[in-house]
């Protein structure tokens, strides 16, 4: 059997597990995220454990992948090739950070919360999609050097 045919199933399972991780950890809750960012106020540092454990597990998998020439169900690893630290990266990160602090939602948790059908979440997601397209129309995709 051709293992590449399993690729959609792998992506589906990964998305589901990712979403469950966001829900179990409480990353989906804007109030909890804002409390994590409230370092100079009523700081709740527990969410640092989410990032810490996720990075550690992925780093291990990434290192294991180094021993393989290809993924299990695809022909190549698509590792990002960008290394530039420029104004585009920094301004994007700052704008994102400000928006993240305002309400306490970043893209993953916003998407995983869609089926709460909470109207405030849905309004955020609508603005999120609009912001993504505005950037696409006004600034455009990043140029990769040949």
């Amino acid at each position, binding site marked *: 059997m051709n293992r590449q045919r399993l690729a959609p199933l792998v992506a589906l399972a990964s998305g*589901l597990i990712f*979403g469950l991780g966001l829900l179990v950890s409480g990353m989906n809750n804007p109030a909890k995220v804002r409390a994590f960012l409230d370092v100079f106020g009523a700081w709740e540092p527990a969410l640092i454990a989410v990032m810490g454990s996720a990075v550690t597990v992925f780093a291990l998998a990434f290192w294991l992948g180094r021993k393989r020439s290809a993924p299990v169900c695809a022909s190549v690893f698509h590792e990002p090739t960008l290394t530039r630290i420029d104004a585009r990266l920094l301004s994007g990160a700052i704008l994102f950070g400000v928006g993240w602090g305002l309400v306490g939602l970043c893209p993953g948790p916003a998407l995983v919360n869609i*089926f709460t059908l909470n109207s405030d979440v849905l309004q955020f997601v609508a603005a999120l999609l609009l912001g993504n397209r505005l950037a696409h129309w006004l600034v455009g995709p990043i140029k990769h050097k040949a």
Partner: protein
Amino acid sequence: MMYELAGGTLIGLAAALLWLGIGRISGMTGVLSSVFQSWQPQRRWALWFLAGLLLAYPLFRLLGGEAPVVITDHKGLLAAAGLLVGFGTYIGNGCTSGHGVCGMGRLSVRSTVATVTFMVAGVVTVAMMNQLGVQV
């Protein structure tokens, strides 16, 4: 702390499965953009990933899980925040998942700089809102 560690481990495992399974980075910014480019075959994995992500909440509730969502109902804040996050993650090529989890896991300097930058921006934003007495 146990829930945070368990949830983070699941997120790490999901990212590991996607990388070792199909060689893709689980960045939500890319997944979001793929919604608008779904006709491109190389983007199709992202729609499957998104489908799994969206199924997580109904499944979690079905299994008896509690996942409170406490969010502001201030329409102006929601619109401004959504626009900033959508715009910023597009031009910065990533967010907490792509830069934060996968980028730092790859020991990418670029992603680490991005992660520190958006973390600091978030902390400063919350501190300034507190100073100005903005209730969320």
